[in-house]
């Protein structure tokens, strides 16, 4: 189909019948043609029917693009925004959204495909070589630059005037300090807030969201409760933020007492009900993926896994610290209360936390 073709003839403007035709003006502006590169003629270069066919194909692609643009314009007006249609794979979806997206996408895609098809089939495709410039400057330019630099150092006298040189170096060395000092303004350093939560002695444990006090008999074995201290809403209103909610969230879980391998303090459970912080010690995600049969608690963020039957120790994943346990008991009315606050900071590690 293709015949070998001498590249040097390509740019000969006098050979009028030679395809591709390049005008004299263009030919002189083109970089050197690639010497020694075999150039093959395309079918569209030799067969005028093929060229015509390619031309029609490109025009058809552009025409189809115009069609889709018109579809976009019409559907913007004609399809009501609320109209829903059921499409396989997508389900029920907004009809206008779908048509607008598809028509816009095809309108721009077909212009691109048409342009590439045009370039590949019909535009000139001769190989050209563009020589890369050398990076090193010419010798005289280099000498000139070095000379200018030398003149500059001599005229400023930085070599002789030691006092200026040293004070300048000192000034430059000190200048970055404000940027370091300004880091202090990232916020007032947290004082005790990272170590303390709202939990304290005799505070009732209430269910999250519904804020009901809990009796131990309300929690059967295998039950999970997301809980809060009873005063959480007051604190939230007072502080006007959710920080305390983020720190004080706990999980209550009941297991058979004989299943508890260890706890963080003697009898910190109440008849097999244990309370642990809901905040992962890795980076502080709320964590409640409790598997009642293994007593494993899985963090959805980075798959840290804690064993609630064994002091909340991490058994897998990036978390290095155990989940802090809250010691619980019941008050005289039989409602679950905290025996004391958390004995260690909840949530992720921080700079001043200590071991």
């Amino acid at each position, binding site marked *: 189909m293709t015949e070998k073709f001498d590249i040097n003839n390509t740019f000969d403007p006098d050979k009028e019948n030679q395809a591709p035709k390049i005008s004299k003006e263009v030919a002189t502006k083109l970089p050197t043609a690639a010497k020694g590169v075999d150039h093959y003629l395309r079918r569209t270069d030799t067969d005028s029917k093929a060229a015509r066919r390619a031309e029609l194909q490109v025009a058809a692609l552009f025409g189809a693009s115009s069609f889709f643009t018109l579809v976009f314009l019409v559907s913007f007006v004609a399809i009501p925004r609320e109209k829903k249609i059921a499409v396989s794979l997508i389900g029920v979806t907004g009809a206008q*959204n779908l048509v607008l997206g598809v028509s816009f996408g095809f309108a721009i895609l077909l212009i691109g495909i048409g342009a590439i098809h045009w370039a590949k089939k019909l535009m000139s495709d001769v190989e050209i070589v563009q020589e890369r410039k050398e990076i090193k400057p010419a010798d005289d330019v280099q000498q000139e630059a070095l000379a200018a630099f030398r003149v500059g150092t001599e005229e400023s006298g930085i070599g002789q005037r030691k006092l200026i040189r040293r004070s300048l170096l000192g000034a430059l060395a000190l200048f970055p300090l404000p940027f370091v000092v300004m880091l202090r303004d990232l916020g007032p350093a947290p004082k005790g807030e990272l170590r303390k939560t709202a939990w304290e002695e005799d505070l009732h444990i209430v*269910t999250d969201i519904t804020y*009901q006090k*809990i009796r131990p008999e309300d*929690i059967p*074995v*295998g039950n999970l409760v997301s809980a809060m201290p009873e005063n959480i809403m007051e604190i939230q209103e007072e502080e006007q933020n959710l920080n305390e909610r983020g720190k004080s969230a706990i999980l209550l*879980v009941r297991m058979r007492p004989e299943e508890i391998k260890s706890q963080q303090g003697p009898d910190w459970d109440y008849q097999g009900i244990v309370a642990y912080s809901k905040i992962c010690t890795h980076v502080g995600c709320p964590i409640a993926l409790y598997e009642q049969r*293994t007593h494993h608690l*899985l963090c959805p963020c980075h798959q840290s896994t804690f064993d609630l039957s064994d002091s909340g120790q991490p058994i897998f994943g990036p978390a290095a610290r155990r989940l802090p346990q809250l010691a619980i008991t019941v008050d005289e009315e039989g409602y679950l209360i905290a025996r004391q606050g958390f004995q260690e900071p909840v949530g992720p590690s921080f700079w001043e936390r200590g071991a």
Partner: protein
Amino acid sequence: MLVLFFALGLVSIGFTGINKLVTPAAAKIGSEETLVDKGSALFAEGCSTCHGLNGQGTSDGPTLAGVGAAAVHFQVSTGRMPMAAPGAQVMRKKPSYNEAETLALAAHIATFGPGPAIPSEEQVNEWQNASLAEGGELFRTNCAQCHNFAGSGGALTNGKYAPSLGQATPLQIYEAMITGPQSMPIFSDKTLTPESKAAIIRYIQELNKSENPGGMDLGRVGPVTEGLVLWVVGLGSLIIFAVWIGARVR
């Protein structure tokens, strides 16, 4: 004997509650006792190999004493029991028993020991009057950690997973909350009241029928599938175009 009467009582509460769901074949069965008898026969045939003739459990299956009718109805009506093969996770499949047979099995197994009864129709249908907003709040606090914010389910440890809630009926959702199937913890009626449960069911119903106005939901699992599609389909088609642009034309 007392235990038996207690269990029978629970079953009859459950049974009268959902008699609308019962097929005509089951409706013909007169008393609970014949229901238990029928369940006993089905149990001996389909369940006793793993759970023991009296539901005492074997090395292949746990004891069924005290699991209650609700657990049986959940496991059997979702097709999880009888299970196809042991593994990390028992999967939902086409149920092997019809509703009448499932109720008979539940009635029989409930006689092994007291456990949660099948919630009544009124209890389950309460979701239609429940608060959607409260349901959303409760769902995100108690359920979304495992079942995903859109109820699509998610991975647990060692091959276990929380299933999607897309196929779960209101009754099955209710039963799952009170019985805690597989890895799922129990959410007792005291710590998550029937009103709260109804609100959660309402929210799940709403999630399940929600549409995809923006296009494909890609499983509603968030950035994981969206990223995958972008990298594979998006970048893949760009590479195909790049190859086409660079290809030599003959």
